């Protein structure tokens, strides 16, 4: 292989060059312009054609260039989904662990009846007085609205009305 004449000239600053010759006499004494690498015959006359062929081949395959990019995009999307799934899993675990212990226990039948009674009393008070129920309803409700609310809540409206 012939080394083309350098356009860059070998004007190494003198002090730099002298310093190198002092510190590396063996290396600096070697013939640096002889290139020992063998290049196959006619390589440089064939090479431009092989580059052109590869360019044309890639142009013919529409996904030749985009496929690696699509792969990269796919990998990124997959990575993001994995991160989201892991975050969701960790958050749901934390939420479950943070729940008060009594909520995860079972109610005795007596406790359940007490709970139902208190719900009915609350509904009764709402129908009779049309009052604002602190902490649950933050606005004055009309009787009609209260009835709709109770219907949705599954209360026994007929029984409540009969009691009235």
């Amino acid at each position, binding site marked *: *292989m*012939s*080394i*083309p004449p*350098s356009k*860059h*000239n*070998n*004007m*190494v600053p003198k002090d*730099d060059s002298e310093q*190198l010759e002092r*510190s*590396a*006499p*063996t*290396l600096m004494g*070697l013939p*640096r312009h*002889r*290139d*020992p*690498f*063998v*290049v*196959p015959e006619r*390589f*440089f006359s064939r*090479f*431009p054609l*092989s*580059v*052109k062929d*590869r*360019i044309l081949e*890639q142009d013919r395959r529409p996904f030749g*260039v985009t496929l690696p990019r699509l792969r990269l995009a796919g990998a990124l999307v997959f990575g993001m989904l994995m991160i989201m799934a892991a975050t969701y899993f960790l958050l749901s675990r934390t939420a479950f662990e943070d729940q008060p212990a009594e909520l995860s226990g079972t109610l005795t039948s007596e406790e359940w009846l007490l709970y139902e009674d208190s719900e009915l009393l609350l509904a009764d008070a709402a129908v009779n007085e049309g009052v604002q129920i602190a902490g649950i309803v933050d606005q004055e409700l009309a009787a009609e609205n209260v009835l709709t609310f109770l219907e949705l809540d599954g209360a026994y409206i007929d029984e409540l009305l009969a009691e009235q």
Partner: protein
Amino acid sequence: MSELSDKELLELFRQKDRRHYAFDLLVRQYQERLYNYVRRMVTDHQDAEDVLQNVFIKAWRGLDKFREDAQLFSWLYRIAHNESITHLKRVKRGLFVDHEAVFERLTASLDHGEQFSGDAIERKLQRAVMRLPEKQRSVFTMKYFQEMKYHEISAITGTSIGALKSSYHIAVRKIEEHLTSDQTK
């Protein structure tokens, strides 16, 4: 045929019906100098050819965006530098960063007469160069074999001149040590 200037090449390339012709001229104009650098970096001819093909394919795809305030040769050289480093990293990854295996893989072609015609000292020099870390090898190749100036190397590698000088001096010292040692590999 006389060489066209970078400006003339780029003007020709911008004419849609002549871009293939202009690119062919560009490849012919720069292939030897770039090959010489890449071959010094990767040693094996087939590897050098693959790397150089990638360099020119990237140049073909990026030439439209090339800014004329930069030198075409520096730009091509930068692509060649990056592609060579990428190739060497790929070889390293393929061999699970076993340094000795990487070294053997990269210098195997030095023992084949059809790839390397140098004498014992030249073989030893090339082995010493291949023992350098990639970036030091790159600086050494540009400076010692291609006789480029520090500011030209700096434009290609994006490294400061001070750092390049220091890197080159370290590389020279290591190579001198290797050349004067009894080490054959």
